[in-house]
């Protein structure tokens, strides 16, 4: 297995080891560089010290030898005789002659006053200072003549008293310096007091003066140049104010070569050590990290849900091996737990049947197929009742028993599941269509068998929804939906076995579409929704003093949508509050506009039970009323008798609050509900509205006349105003007038009208009946 990714641990180990070695070797190198350099410097210094000693020794020795030779010379009788002859020619010749004897390069003779008497060299002259000072020197001294340097030795000429001074000079020439170089193994250069070179063992082609060259010459090196020479400056005794100078010069290039060789050896060794360190640490790190990468592989396998990873690496250390085993054990544990969790996720915990999710996915896997199926959904009738009566535990045991019953169903290869609560489903394979009825029969028969639960024998009854595959749908999920729809319909229709019927699903979808469109219409408020107003005639005053606000919906595609339909859907889908809010807002706004046009009329708004139970209902109504600065006295809230009876306590409290605020409460569709008059009495209502079912055929039906008449009378007795709606002819109107009804409403008077039409209608009406 190759490690393809960069392993930081490995890098770290290599870095650590290499870093340590690097630091160590750098320190050692620096130390060795420094100490070598120091050693070299001290070597050079000691070389020069030695050379200086040798040089000085040489001069002293030479002086001593010269002195000895010269003394012998000056003690020569003939020499003395010649000197005392005072004949210049003779003296010069004797100087030359005797000088040659001891190989002197220069011979001078001065009198006792130091005045030059004779010289072995032509034209030799002392300068003024030399004349006086030469004889003052005790030892040898150096003088320049004709650009040559002489070591000069003074000796008295005694006959037997000192009669003259002889000076014997030896030239410091290249032979001398070469010999000095041989002795000192250093280069030697003599410079005059003007820093000009007199003689030197160093020749250089440079135009630069030698002295400067020696002091400043460098050799190129790594980072900076190094001085090429180490110089020791020595003064030579002379009578000049600035003494001659001797440079003892050590050529450093060979030292540098040795130094560089040493340094490069050290560097190479250090590099090798570093290389070895990198290799070893790399190897070490690999050994350490390879098992880790195996573990990484293992973890990746785990992540993919494979828990049976086996390593081939046998070189693992004990710790890593233990870790590896622990990982493997962990994998097994995870595997077990995962299977357990998976089971739990797929199964209903109570009955161990498949759950909804699993059933649907299994359905997806099974269908489509060439095999035909029955898809059955069952719901236990009155199960909540059972829960209440026998308790949850018994109910649960009951569900378990039912599940057991299902799994023991005689037809093979069925798929059973508990969807939720008391809803179960079964997929039953069909060999042919003829089997449908027999299978359903055996299925219902199985369900009909009493369930034995805790010694109880329970006879359960069911609602059963059925679809067939592929007849009802090819699509497994649609089939499932339709099965559930069939079950819903079985409940609604209260039938035991309900097959899905073609088109039911589409109707449900239409329903959904209407609801969605209604939401859009409410959100956009673009005129699709609008209000109609149906006038109410006050029979006492013969005036139109009330209208009922009725919502209308003209959808751009679906056209006119029945208010009963969409209000019903709105109630079912919980958007009724939004719808009512819209209605309240539109209506009260209209009321406000009419009042500004001096049309004073009360408006009745239909409110549903859901509106009532909405916590914001009152606040919103009040806020809208205040917003348009309309008095609540002009607003009637129509609530159906059935709605009024729900959740009485809360309803009464709210009604009371509304009444206290000034709203009028009217009981709509009165007469078809089952409300008792006693309860009605307790409610803070002000108006009864007799359902149109009693009014529309009033002129024909005597029984209706009795009901309406007694209702009106009853209402009046309870101090309620009574409205009759659905008045469609003159006879009914006349009857109602006779019955002392307070208001009438209906096509006979006017259809529901748009706000604009209502105003013109009202004008016409008032003019006609004025």
């Amino acid at each position, binding site marked *: 297995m190759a490690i393809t990714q960069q392993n930081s641990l490995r890098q770290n180990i290599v870095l650590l080891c290499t870093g340590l070695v690097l630091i160590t070797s750098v320190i050692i190198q620096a130390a060795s560089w420094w100490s070598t350099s120091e050693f070299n410097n001290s070597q050079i210094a000691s070389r020069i010290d030695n050379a200086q000693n040798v040089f000085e020794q040489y001069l002293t020795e030479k002086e001593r030898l010269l002195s000895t030779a010269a003394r012998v010379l000056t003690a020569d009788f003939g020499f003395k005789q010649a000197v005392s002859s005072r004949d210049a020619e003779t003296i010069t010749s004797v100087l030359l002659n005797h000088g040659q004897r001891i190989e002197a390069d220069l011979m001078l003779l001065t009198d006792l006053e130091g005045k030059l008497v004779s010289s072995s060299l032509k034209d030799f002259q002392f300068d003024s200072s030399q004349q006086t000072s030469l004889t003052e020197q005790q030892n040898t001294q150096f003088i320049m003549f004709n650009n040559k340097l002489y070591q000069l030795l003074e000796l008295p000429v005694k*006959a*037997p008293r000192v009669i003259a001074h002889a000076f014997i000079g030896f030239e410091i020439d290249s032979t001398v310096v070469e010999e000095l170089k041989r002795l000192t193994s250093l280069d030697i250069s003599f410079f005059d007091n003007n820093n000009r070179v007199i003689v030197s063992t160093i020749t250089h082609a440079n135009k630069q003066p030698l002295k400067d060259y020696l002091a400043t010459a460098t050799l190129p090196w790594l980072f900076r140049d190094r001085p090429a020479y180490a110089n020791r400056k020595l003064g030579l005794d002379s009578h000049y104010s600035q003494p001659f100078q001797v440079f003892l010069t050590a050529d450093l290039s060979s030292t540098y070569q040795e130094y560089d060789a040493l340094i490069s050896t050290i560097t190479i060794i250090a590099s090798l050590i570093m290389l070895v360190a990198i290799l070893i640490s790399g190897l070490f790190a690999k050994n350490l990290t390879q098992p880790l990468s195996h573990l990484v592989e293992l973890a990746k396998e785990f992540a993919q849900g494979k828990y049976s990873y086996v390593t081939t690496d046998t070189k693992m250390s004990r710790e890593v091996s233990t870790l590896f085993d622990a990982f493997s054990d962990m994998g097994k544990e995870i595997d077990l737990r995962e299977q357990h969790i998976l089971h739990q996720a797929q199964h209903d915990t109570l009955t161990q049947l498949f759950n909804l999710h699993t059933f649907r996915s299994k359905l997806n896997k099974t269908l489509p197929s060439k095999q035909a199926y029955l898809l059955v959904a069952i719901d236990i009738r009155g199960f909540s009742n059972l829960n209440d009566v026998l308790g949850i535990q018994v109910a649960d045991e009951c569900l378990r028993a039912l599940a057991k019953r299902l799994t023991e169903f005689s037809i093979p290869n069925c798929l059973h599941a508990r969807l939720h609560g008391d809803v179960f489903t079964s997929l039953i394979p069909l060999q042919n269509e003829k089997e449908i009825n027999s299978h359903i029969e055996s299925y219902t028969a199985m369900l009909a068998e009493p369930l034995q639960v805790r010694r109880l024998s329970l006879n359960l009854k069911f609602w059963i929804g059925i679809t067939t595959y592929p007849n009802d749908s090819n699509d497994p999920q649609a089939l499932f939906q339709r099965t559930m729809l069939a079950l819903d319909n079985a409940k609604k229709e209260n039938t035991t076995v309900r097959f899905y019927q073609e088109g039911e699903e589409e109707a449900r979808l239409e329903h959904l579409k209407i609801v969605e469109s209604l939401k859009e219409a409410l959100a956009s408020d673009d005129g699709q929704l609008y209000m109609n107003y149906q006038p109410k005639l006050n029979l006492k005053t013969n005036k139109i003093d009330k209208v009922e606000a009725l919502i209308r919906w003209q959808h751009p595609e679906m056209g006119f949508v029945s208010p009963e339909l969409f209000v019903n859907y709105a109630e079912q889908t919980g958007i009724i509050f939004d719808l009512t809010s819209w209605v309240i807002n539109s209506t009260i706004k209209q009321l406000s506009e009419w009042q500004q046009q001096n049309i004073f009329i009360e408006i009745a708004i239909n409110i549903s039970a859901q509106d009532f139970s909405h916590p914001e209902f009152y606040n919103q109504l009040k806020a809208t009323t205040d917003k348009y600065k309309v008095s609540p006295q002009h607003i009637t809230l129509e609530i159906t008798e059935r709605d009024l009876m729900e959740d009485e306590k809360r309803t009464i409290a709210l009604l009371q609050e509304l009444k206290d605020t000034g709203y009028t409460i009217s009981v709509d569709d009165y007469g078809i509900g089952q409300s008792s008059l006693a309860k009605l009495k307790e409610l803070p209502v002000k108006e009864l509205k007799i359902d149109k079912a009693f009014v529309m055929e009033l002129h024909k039906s005597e029984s209706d006349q009795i009901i309406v008449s007694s209702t009106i009378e009853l209402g009046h007795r309870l101090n309620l105003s009574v409205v009759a709606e659905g008045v469609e002819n003159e006879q009914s109107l006349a009857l109602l007038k006779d019955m002392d009804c307070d208001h009438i409403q209906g096509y006979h008077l006017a259809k529901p009208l748009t706000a604009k039409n209502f105003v013109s209608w009202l004008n016409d009406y008032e003019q006609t009946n004025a």
Partner: protein
Amino acid sequence: MFKPFFPYFTVTLLAILFSPFVHSAPIVVHVHNQHGEQLKNAIIEIIDPSAEQNTVPTEPAVMDQVNKRFVPDLIVIQQGQSVLFPNSDDIRHHVYSFSQAKQFELKLYAGKPKAAIPFEKNGVVIVGCNIHDSMVGSIYVAKNRTQKTSDDGTATLELTPTSEQISVWHSNQQAAPEQRVIFDINKLKSNEYMITIPTIQPPARDTFGDTFGDYSAE
């Protein structure tokens, strides 16, 4: 080693008495060196051109050589007198002089030389031995009357009216060995005065010349 100084002579004339100078009267001369040490055996010659020539002794003076020394190492003779250089040592000597007043050479000899050496010119003659450099002898060849300073460095001079100058010489003087310092008597304002002659220490006895005498003999 000889170390010359400038000036070679410092002559300090100190007038002690301001009485009129009288030529016939004796004058006292004090001679000392630069360190104030009194110099004995300084030779003072009274130069008097008109004085009669002193009678030259016929007998030669003697400068013996004993124990590698000239004995005495200083003699004063009259111009024209001869000097005999007998050799009393067991070894031979080579007596010579390169002085201007007299150059001569008595090549290696033992015992008494054949003849005495005549000194015809006045002046100082320094004699040495060619093979023994430490041997130095001085012969003062006088033309006029001379007088040596005593141990206290003084000399009393009896001057004649014709005396014009005196010369002063000392064997250890710093100046050239043969040089004499001349003083003009007429200019002296007193009859007692001091003369400073800078001196040097005579070289040690056991010298290079003694050690390597054989070489120098060549």
